[in-house]
């Protein structure tokens, strides 16, 4: 993107763009094997989650303490609210580890986006959502194929009771949806939400900084407004981040449940 020069200000202001998401720490700028900031953060999140849930389950008691209460609350939410409701009470148990891991990992990595000093959503690098999506994609097709066999799984794409001339079209539509659209939207949704949210915060904060520090008194007022909006948007981001972790897990459970379902 070309730099946007404000008409009134003498100095140029470079708006934030996709290049603000590239944070190499160790290694060259162009290599494929560069250690980047999100890579360090995803490791940090694994350590944090592991530490938290080990601490929460260390001294289990019938009357839960604070940590145990929070841990059980998150687990119960995934188990009852997502697993049991969407996969069905018969099969949901064996998918709980996957759903629970996805939810906590995405949640912590998303919330990193607004925690001071960390302040970068890991999932705004497309590689991380793609990795998570590949796992979901393999799992829901694998359980469907294992349960119904290749022919049964493909036959199950079309709901029963349709007039025969429409079946090929529906089959094509459903095939494209299940094998192509689903993985693309699943990874893009998480990536684009985090990317757009972080970019929005950058626009407000960098804009406020530029207007307050570099421009005239009229702009200082606008800059202050922009800073206030940045705070409001930070809270909005928290909402979006939690929601996206929920939606990713929800869709994983929904896809698994759909692959396991007997009849439409």
């Amino acid at each position, binding site marked *: *993107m*070309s*730099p*946007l*020069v*404000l*008409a009134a200000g003498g100095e140029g202001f470079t708006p934030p763009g*996709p290049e603000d998401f590239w944070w190499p720490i160790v290694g060259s700028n162009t290599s494929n094997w560069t250690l980047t900031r999100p890579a360090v953060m995803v490791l940090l999140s694994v350590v944090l989650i592991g530490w938290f849930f080990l601490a929460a389950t260390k001294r289990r008691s019938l009357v839960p303490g604070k940590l145990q209460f929070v841990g059980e609350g998150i687990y119960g939410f995934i188990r009852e*609210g*997502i697993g049991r*409701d*969407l996969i069905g009470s018969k099969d949901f148990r064996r998918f709980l580890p996957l759903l629970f891991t996805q939810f906590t990992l995405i949640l912590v990595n998303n919330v990193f986006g607004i925690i001071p000093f960390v302040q970068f959503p890991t999932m705004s690098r497309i590689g991380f959502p793609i990795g998570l999506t590949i796992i979901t994609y393999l799992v829901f097709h694998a359980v469907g194929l294992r349960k119904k066999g290749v022919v049964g799984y493909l036959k199950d794409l079309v709901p029963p009771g349709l007039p025969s001339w429409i079946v090929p079209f529906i089959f094509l539509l459903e095939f494209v949806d299940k094998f192509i659209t689903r993985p693309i*939207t699943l990874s*893009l*949704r998480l990536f*684009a*939400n985090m*990317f*757009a949210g972080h970019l929005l915060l950058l626009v407000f904060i960098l804009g406020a900084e530029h207007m307050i520090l570099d421009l005239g008194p009229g702009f200082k007022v606008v800059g202050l407004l922009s800073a206030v909006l940045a705070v409001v948007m930070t809270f909005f981001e928290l909402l979006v981040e939690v929601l996206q972790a*929920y*939606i990713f897990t*929800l*869709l994983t459970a*929904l896809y698994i449940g759909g692959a396991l379902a007997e009849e439409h």
Partner: protein
Amino acid sequence: MTGNLNLVGYGLSAIGPGVGIGLIFAAYINGVARQPEARGMLQPIAFLGFALAEALALFGLVLAFVL
């Protein structure tokens, strides 16, 4: 002032999903207001619809940067 027309196009393309998400949640709120005990069943459906409508806006966002 220079800029990129792609972003104007993205703004226009975001109208549709915006309206769609509004309709989805309006229906969800209506449903819960009429039958509060159906909330648990409606919530995943509402969020699924929200996610699908939102995906369209996100395609627009990605294309705005890619094209």
